[in-house]
């Protein structure tokens, strides 16, 4: 989530540095968690399609997104590493899964206010809840990271 590529890369670096400083390590990536993330991403895009009634079609100028796509994936993965990885894990151990789910969902929504405004809070709360649900279901941050990245890519590619 950033206004430009340099800002996005700075944001990613800050997130990963802070996540590392908190002592969190990502762990192994398991195929079933990736599969759950893909399904989760499909649901996020499906909700957009069903709820907003948009037509889904590939954008005409796909080449223009060649540099954009890896940056978007990096931002999504870094956000998930901090929220559904480090923060969720620490809170779950400390106060239980409900607190972890609530705090990370609210944090996710608040983080997006500077760029999208207060009007985006209900949507981002719902998305945070969905990604937190994936974290709870799989026990891994991989699934929400994959779902988040797919949904963000869809925002540019569709």
């Amino acid at each position, binding site marked *: 989530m950033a206004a430009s590529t340099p800002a996005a890369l700075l944001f990613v670096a800050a997130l990963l540095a802070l996540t590392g400083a908190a002592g969190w390590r990502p762990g192994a990536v398991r195929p079933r968690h990736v599969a759950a993330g893909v399904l989760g991403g499909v649901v996020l895009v499906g909700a957009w399609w069903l709820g907003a009634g948009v037509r889904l079609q590939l954008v005409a100028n796909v080449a223009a997104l060649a540099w*954009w796509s890896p940056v978007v994936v990096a931002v999504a993965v870094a956000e998930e590493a901090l929220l559904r990885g480090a*923060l969720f894990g620490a809170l779950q151990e400390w106060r239980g899964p409900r607190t972890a789910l609530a705090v990370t969902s609210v944090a996710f929504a608040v983080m997006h206010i500077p760029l*999208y405004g207060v*009007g985006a809070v209900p949507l981002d709360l719902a998305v945070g809840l969905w990604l937190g649900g994936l974290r709870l279901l799989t026990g891994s941050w991989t699934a929400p990271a994959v779902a988040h990245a797919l949904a963000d890519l869809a925002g540019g590619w*569709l």
Partner: protein
Amino acid sequence: MSRKAAGLVLLLAGVLLTVVWRVTPAASPPVYDGVCAADPYRALGSSPAPTSASTMYGAVTTGNFQTSEVVTTETPPQAQLLLVDGTFVSPEPFTVSITPISPPGPQPSDGSIDGNVYRIVAVTASAKQLNPVDAAHSATLLLRATATSPARTLERLDGTTWTDVKTLLAGCGDTFEAATPRLGDFALVVPKQGSGGGGGGGTGPPVVPIVVGLVVILLATTLGLIRLNRSRSG
């Protein structure tokens, strides 16, 4: 929390997502998140020129108009009109169009026009002008500004005066949105005390304050994490 409870959370979140997308003004691009890839703003009279857009519809009876959008072709679009189910009723075919126009004579009293003025109309084959059937079926209009700050207000030209419409920031490309029960001529207006109006090249969102603010939030989060870890190990 059990897998069943996690499944319930997902079910609740899925329903919430669909409902929020339904009730939120059908705007807020991008879908969820991302890095904004915005071309420079195209002012009327410059090259490349801003684009127009139009969509033709057949005759529609009450409640039969389908959700639709009319969008110009810049990246992101400089003007978007989002229409919900039942917005229009017309016994004959009609066309909804968006056209950048030269600023009309009257100027806003509370600021200066930023970017282009757009004429947004729905006109039937017999030249009758249409508007949304009621306020509950207002059209959502998104216009790009040349910058985000200071916040712009979307205004509609009603005769000889510009009328404010409740405006929200819609994200990528300095885009602002508002719901309007009437079509007509629209523009974004920079408040008088602000600067940067008049349609010049934009500077985009204030990147540095945004990044600094986020880093501060994240630092606080991380410090909290470290304290948690220490309290557990202690």
